[in-house]
C-alpha cells in the first residue's frame, strides 16, 4: 500500500500500519499511523497515513531514564513506550522537550497504539531533554 505522508511517499505492508482506535489527543480523527526509525539517536517518526501534513518525532524516555515509569496502564509483551518530542525550530539553538505525561504506547504484535495520560503522575508535557541543532530540509 502506498501513502502520501509528511515524509513523502511511503510503501507499507499491512503489518506496518498501526491502528490508534482513539487517535491522538487533538487528532482524534487520525486512526492510521506508521512508526519509522529515523536513524538518529533512537529517534523515531510517527507518521499519519491520513494527513500528509502530520508527523511526530518520538523517543524512548524509558530507555534513558531508568526511573521513568508508566503508571496506570498495564504493559504487556509487545508493548513499547514512546514519548512525543516538541522541537521548537524558531531559535538557533532549538529547545527540545518530551511529553512524559502522555506517552504513546505501541503494541507492535497487535499493530495497535494509544496515547495514554498518566493523570496523577506529576510528569510534564514539556520535560526538557535535548538541546541541539535542527535543520529543516
Amino acid at each position, binding site marked *: 500500500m502506498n501513502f502520501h505522508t*509528511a*515524509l*513523502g511517499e511511503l510503501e507499507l505492508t499491512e503489518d506496518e500500519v498501526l491502528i490508534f482506535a*482513539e487517535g*491522538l*489527543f*487533538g*487528532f482524534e480523527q487520525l486512526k492510521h499511523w506508521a512508526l519509522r526509525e*529515523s536513524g*538518529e*539517536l533512537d*529517534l523515531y517518526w510517527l507518521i499519519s497515513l491520513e494527513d500528509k*501534513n*502530520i*508527523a*511526530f*518525532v518520538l523517543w524512548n524516555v524509558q530507555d*534513558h*531514564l531508568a526511573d521513568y515509569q508508566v503508571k496506570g496502564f498495564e504493559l504487556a509483551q509487545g508493548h513499547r513506550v514512546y514519548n*512525543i*518530542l*516538541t*522541537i521548537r*525550530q524558531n531559535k538557533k539553538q532549538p*529547545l*527540545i522537550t518530551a*511529553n512524559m*505525561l*502522555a506517552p504513546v504506547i505501541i503494541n507492535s504484535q497487535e499493530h495497535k497504539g494509544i*496515547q495514554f*495520560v498518566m*493523570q496523577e503522575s506529576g510528569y510534564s*508535557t*514539556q*520535560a*526538557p*531533554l*535535548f*538541546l*541541539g*541543532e*535542527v*535543520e*529543516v*530540509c
Partner: protein
Amino acid sequence: MLVLTRKPGQTIRIGNDIQIEILSVNGEHIKVGISAPSEVLILRDEIHRSVCRQNQSSVIPGPINLAGVRLKSMNEGERERDEELNGNK
C-alpha cells in the same frame, strides 16, 4: 447543558454504567467520585486540553534533519531551560 442540583452523598447516573457521586463539598472544593467502565477515559479538562495543545505544537509537517539533535542529561536540559526562561543566558 443539563443542569442538576445534588447534595453530598447523592448520585447521578449516565447511561447504564456510569455513576457520579458528590462525595463532599468544602468551600470551593467539590469532591466527586466517578464509577465507569475502564475503557471510558476520565480526565480533568485542563489536562486534556494541555495534552491536545502539546500534540498540536509537536506536529512536524514535513521532513526535518534530526542529525544535529544531541542528548543532554535531564538536569542539564532543565538548567538551560531555566536560564533561558530567566533570560540570563
